[in-house]
Protein backbone atom coordinates (compact mmCIF):
# COMPACT_ATOMS: atom_id res chain seq x y z
CA UNK A 1 0.00 0.00 0.00
CA UNK A 2 2.76 2.39 1.08
CA UNK A 3 4.84 1.41 -1.97
CA UNK A 4 1.90 2.15 -4.22
CA UNK A 5 1.57 5.64 -2.74
CA UNK A 6 5.24 6.39 -3.41
CA UNK A 7 4.93 5.07 -6.95
CA UNK A 8 1.83 7.21 -7.55
CA UNK A 9 3.68 10.25 -6.16
CA UNK A 10 6.58 9.54 -8.53
CA UNK A 11 4.25 9.23 -11.53
CA UNK A 12 2.51 12.49 -10.58
CA UNK A 13 5.86 14.27 -10.19
CA UNK A 14 7.02 13.04 -13.60
CA UNK A 15 3.72 14.04 -15.22
CA UNK A 16 3.90 17.53 -13.68
CA UNK A 17 7.51 17.91 -14.86
CA UNK A 18 6.55 17.03 -18.44
CA UNK A 19 3.52 19.32 -18.22
CA UNK A 20 5.73 22.23 -17.05
CA UNK A 21 8.12 21.69 -20.00
CA UNK A 22 5.13 21.55 -22.36
CA UNK A 23 3.67 24.80 -20.98
CA UNK A 24 7.08 26.51 -21.29
CA UNK A 25 7.35 25.45 -24.93
CA UNK A 26 3.85 26.42 -26.03
CA UNK A 27 2.84 29.17 -23.56
CA UNK A 28 2.51 32.57 -25.22
CA UNK A 29 1.95 35.03 -22.36
CA UNK A 30 5.11 35.32 -20.21
CA UNK A 31 3.32 36.13 -16.94
CA UNK A 32 0.66 33.41 -17.33
CA UNK A 33 3.24 30.83 -18.40
CA UNK A 34 5.44 31.73 -15.44
CA UNK A 35 2.45 31.45 -13.07
CA UNK A 36 1.57 27.95 -14.32
CA UNK A 37 5.20 26.74 -14.25
CA UNK A 38 5.73 28.11 -10.73
CA UNK A 39 2.47 26.56 -9.49
CA UNK A 40 3.53 23.19 -10.90
CA UNK A 41 6.94 23.64 -9.30
CA UNK A 42 5.30 24.25 -5.91
CA UNK A 43 3.26 21.03 -6.13
CA UNK A 44 6.37 19.03 -7.10
CA UNK A 45 8.49 20.60 -4.36
CA UNK A 46 5.88 19.81 -1.71
CA UNK A 47 5.39 16.30 -3.14
CA UNK A 48 9.09 15.51 -2.71
CA UNK A 49 9.27 17.16 0.72
CA UNK A 50 6.08 15.68 2.20
CA UNK A 51 6.23 12.18 0.72
CA UNK A 52 9.80 11.30 -0.23
CA UNK A 53 11.31 13.17 2.73
CA UNK A 54 8.54 12.01 5.09
CA UNK A 55 7.75 15.58 6.11
CA UNK A 56 4.10 14.62 6.57
CA UNK A 57 5.20 12.63 9.62
CA UNK A 58 7.17 15.57 11.07
CA UNK A 59 6.22 18.20 13.64
CA UNK A 60 4.00 21.09 12.51
CA UNK A 61 6.97 23.48 12.81
CA UNK A 62 8.93 21.75 10.00
CA UNK A 63 5.89 21.47 7.75
CA UNK A 64 5.07 25.15 8.15
CA UNK A 65 8.73 26.18 7.71
CA UNK A 66 8.84 24.44 4.30
CA UNK A 67 5.47 25.89 3.28
CA UNK A 68 6.51 29.40 4.32
CA UNK A 69 9.84 29.12 2.47
CA UNK A 70 8.28 27.91 -0.78
CA UNK A 71 5.43 30.47 -0.63
CA UNK A 72 7.77 33.42 -0.05
CA UNK A 73 10.15 32.22 -2.75
CA UNK A 74 7.36 31.81 -5.28
CA UNK A 75 5.78 35.16 -4.43
CA UNK A 76 9.10 37.01 -4.89
CA UNK A 77 9.91 35.22 -8.16
CA UNK A 78 6.41 35.73 -9.55
CA UNK A 79 6.37 39.46 -8.70
CA UNK A 80 9.88 39.95 -10.14
CA UNK A 81 9.43 38.01 -13.37
Amino acid at each position, binding site marked *: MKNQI*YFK*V*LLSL*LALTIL*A*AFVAKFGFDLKATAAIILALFMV*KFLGVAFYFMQLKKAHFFWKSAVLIFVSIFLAIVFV*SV
Partner: protein
Amino acid sequence: MNLVKIDSKNIYYPPGGILMWIILFLELLTFGMALVAMVIYSKDEPEVFHSSRLLLNSTFGLVNTIFLLTSGFFMVKSVESFKVNNIKKSSLYLKLTMLGGFLFLLLKSFEYFEKIEAGLSIGYNTFFSFYWMLTLFHVIHVLVGLVILSSVYFSLNKKNMDLAVEDFEASATFWHMCDLIWLLLFPIIYLIF
Protein backbone atom coordinates in the same frame (compact mmCIF):
# COMPACT_ATOMS: atom_id res chain seq x y z
CA MET B 1 20.93 -3.56 12.91
CA ASN B 2 20.13 -0.85 15.44
CA LEU B 3 16.37 -0.22 15.16
CA VAL B 4 15.24 2.50 17.56
CA LYS B 5 11.73 3.91 17.34
CA ILE B 6 12.02 7.64 16.66
CA ASP B 7 9.06 9.93 17.23
CA SER B 8 9.15 12.16 14.14
CA LYS B 9 6.31 14.26 15.56
CA ASN B 10 8.77 15.60 18.12
CA ILE B 11 10.06 19.01 16.98
CA TYR B 12 13.67 17.96 17.69
CA TYR B 13 13.49 14.78 15.58
CA PRO B 14 12.35 15.55 12.04
CA PRO B 15 12.89 12.58 9.66
CA GLY B 16 16.60 12.62 8.78
CA GLY B 17 17.61 14.55 11.90
CA ILE B 18 17.47 18.17 12.99
CA LEU B 19 21.01 19.03 11.80
CA MET B 20 20.25 17.75 8.32
CA TRP B 21 17.12 19.93 8.21
CA ILE B 22 19.03 22.99 9.36
CA ILE B 23 21.55 22.37 6.55
CA LEU B 24 18.65 21.84 4.15
CA PHE B 25 17.09 25.20 5.00
CA LEU B 26 20.45 26.97 4.70
CA GLU B 27 20.97 25.42 1.27
CA LEU B 28 17.46 26.30 0.14
CA LEU B 29 17.95 29.88 1.32
CA THR B 30 21.30 30.15 -0.48
CA PHE B 31 19.97 28.83 -3.78
CA GLY B 32 16.68 30.68 -3.30
CA MET B 33 18.38 34.04 -2.85
CA ALA B 34 20.66 33.45 -5.85
CA LEU B 35 17.64 32.58 -8.01
CA VAL B 36 15.77 35.66 -6.82
CA ALA B 37 18.86 37.73 -7.74
CA MET B 38 18.86 36.07 -11.17
CA VAL B 39 15.18 36.95 -11.72
CA ILE B 40 15.79 40.57 -10.60
CA TYR B 41 18.79 40.89 -12.97
CA SER B 42 16.62 39.57 -15.80
CA LYS B 43 14.47 42.72 -15.49
CA ASP B 44 17.47 44.80 -16.68
CA GLU B 45 18.21 42.57 -19.68
CA PRO B 46 14.99 40.68 -20.58
CA GLU B 47 16.06 40.07 -24.20
CA VAL B 48 19.46 38.70 -23.18
CA PHE B 49 17.87 36.35 -20.65
CA HIS B 50 15.21 35.18 -23.10
CA SER B 51 17.64 34.53 -25.96
CA SER B 52 20.13 32.87 -23.59
CA ARG B 53 17.44 30.63 -22.12
CA LEU B 54 16.61 29.50 -25.64
CA LEU B 55 20.26 28.45 -26.07
CA LEU B 56 19.77 25.90 -23.28
CA ASN B 57 18.44 22.47 -24.16
CA SER B 58 15.34 22.18 -21.96
CA THR B 59 15.02 18.49 -22.92
CA PHE B 60 18.30 17.87 -21.07
CA GLY B 61 16.87 19.70 -18.06
CA LEU B 62 13.66 17.67 -18.29
CA VAL B 63 15.47 14.33 -18.56
CA ASN B 64 17.75 15.28 -15.67
CA THR B 65 14.68 16.12 -13.55
CA ILE B 66 13.27 12.68 -14.39
CA PHE B 67 16.59 11.05 -13.39
CA LEU B 68 16.68 12.82 -10.02
CA LEU B 69 13.00 12.25 -9.19
CA THR B 70 13.25 8.55 -10.05
CA SER B 71 16.45 8.32 -8.07
CA GLY B 72 14.65 9.93 -5.10
CA PHE B 73 11.88 7.33 -5.40
CA PHE B 74 14.42 4.50 -5.21
CA MET B 75 16.00 6.22 -2.20
CA VAL B 76 12.64 6.07 -0.38
CA LYS B 77 12.29 2.38 -1.29
CA SER B 78 15.81 1.69 -0.08
CA VAL B 79 15.14 3.29 3.32
CA GLU B 80 11.79 1.46 3.61
CA SER B 81 13.45 -1.89 2.84
CA PHE B 82 16.19 -1.16 5.37
CA LYS B 83 13.59 -0.46 8.06
CA VAL B 84 12.04 -3.92 7.58
CA ASN B 85 15.52 -5.47 7.64
CA ASN B 86 15.50 -6.45 3.96
CA ILE B 87 19.13 -5.57 3.36
CA LYS B 88 19.37 -7.22 -0.05
CA LYS B 89 16.50 -5.14 -1.46
CA SER B 90 17.72 -2.02 0.29
CA SER B 91 21.14 -2.48 -1.31
CA LEU B 92 19.59 -3.01 -4.76
CA TYR B 93 17.44 0.14 -4.46
CA LEU B 94 20.45 2.08 -3.24
CA LYS B 95 22.36 1.03 -6.35
CA LEU B 96 19.46 2.24 -8.51
CA THR B 97 19.45 5.53 -6.56
CA MET B 98 23.13 6.04 -7.29
CA LEU B 99 22.62 5.07 -10.93
CA GLY B 100 20.12 7.96 -11.20
CA GLY B 101 22.77 10.30 -9.78
CA PHE B 102 25.43 9.04 -12.20
CA LEU B 103 23.08 9.42 -15.18
CA PHE B 104 22.34 12.97 -14.04
CA LEU B 105 26.04 13.77 -13.91
CA LEU B 106 26.67 12.12 -17.28
CA LEU B 107 24.00 14.17 -19.02
CA LYS B 108 25.08 17.33 -17.22
CA SER B 109 28.68 16.76 -18.37
CA PHE B 110 27.47 16.37 -21.94
CA GLU B 111 25.44 19.58 -21.60
CA TYR B 112 28.45 21.45 -20.16
CA PHE B 113 30.67 20.15 -22.96
CA GLU B 114 28.18 21.43 -25.55
CA LYS B 115 28.05 24.86 -23.91
CA ILE B 116 31.83 25.16 -23.70
CA GLU B 117 32.16 24.06 -27.35
CA ALA B 118 29.68 26.79 -28.32
CA GLY B 119 31.66 29.38 -26.33
CA LEU B 120 28.86 29.87 -23.78
CA SER B 121 31.17 30.04 -20.79
CA ILE B 122 30.67 31.69 -17.40
CA GLY B 123 31.66 35.15 -18.71
CA TYR B 124 29.46 35.05 -21.83
CA ASN B 125 26.67 37.14 -20.26
CA THR B 126 24.78 37.60 -16.98
CA PHE B 127 22.41 34.71 -17.67
CA PHE B 128 25.27 32.26 -18.26
CA SER B 129 27.14 33.53 -15.19
CA PHE B 130 24.13 32.52 -13.09
CA TYR B 131 23.64 29.31 -15.09
CA TRP B 132 27.20 28.10 -14.50
CA MET B 133 27.43 29.16 -10.86
CA LEU B 134 24.10 27.69 -9.80
CA THR B 135 24.22 24.45 -11.77
CA LEU B 136 27.88 23.77 -10.90
CA PHE B 137 27.16 24.39 -7.21
CA HIS B 138 24.31 21.90 -7.51
CA VAL B 139 26.55 19.37 -9.29
CA ILE B 140 28.94 19.61 -6.31
CA HIS B 141 26.01 18.69 -4.05
CA VAL B 142 25.17 15.70 -6.23
CA LEU B 143 28.81 14.56 -6.12
CA VAL B 144 28.88 14.88 -2.32
CA GLY B 145 25.54 13.02 -2.17
CA LEU B 146 26.98 10.18 -4.25
CA VAL B 147 30.00 9.94 -1.95
CA ILE B 148 27.66 9.75 1.07
CA LEU B 149 25.47 7.10 -0.61
CA SER B 150 28.55 5.07 -1.62
CA SER B 151 29.68 5.08 2.00
CA VAL B 152 26.19 3.93 3.09
CA TYR B 153 26.29 1.24 0.40
CA PHE B 154 29.61 -0.13 1.65
CA SER B 155 28.38 -0.05 5.26
CA LEU B 156 25.26 -1.90 4.16
CA ASN B 157 27.27 -4.66 2.50
CA LYS B 158 29.74 -5.16 5.33
CA LYS B 159 29.76 -8.55 7.02
CA ASN B 160 28.96 -7.10 10.45
CA MET B 161 26.60 -4.38 9.31
CA ASP B 162 26.14 -1.77 12.05
CA LEU B 163 24.44 1.00 10.09
CA ALA B 164 21.88 2.94 12.15
CA VAL B 165 18.48 3.91 10.69
CA GLU B 166 19.09 7.56 11.62
CA ASP B 167 22.33 7.62 9.60
CA PHE B 168 20.60 6.04 6.62
CA GLU B 169 17.72 8.55 6.88
CA ALA B 170 20.12 11.48 7.18
CA SER B 171 21.91 10.36 4.01
CA ALA B 172 18.54 9.97 2.27
CA THR B 173 17.54 13.48 3.37
CA PHE B 174 20.76 14.86 1.86
CA TRP B 175 20.00 13.07 -1.41
CA HIS B 176 16.42 14.40 -1.47
CA MET B 177 17.84 17.87 -0.81
CA CYS B 178 19.68 17.56 -4.16
CA ASP B 179 16.26 16.83 -5.72
CA LEU B 180 14.69 19.86 -4.05
CA ILE B 181 17.49 22.19 -5.15
CA TRP B 182 17.19 20.92 -8.72
CA LEU B 183 13.42 21.46 -8.56
CA LEU B 184 14.17 25.11 -7.69
CA LEU B 185 16.73 25.49 -10.49
CA PHE B 186 14.99 23.72 -13.35
CA PRO B 187 11.88 25.93 -13.83
CA ILE B 188 13.74 29.20 -13.37
CA ILE B 189 16.88 28.56 -15.40
CA TYR B 190 15.38 26.39 -18.15
CA LEU B 191 11.75 27.45 -18.44
CA ILE B 192 10.50 30.84 -17.32
CA PHE B 193 12.63 33.46 -19.11
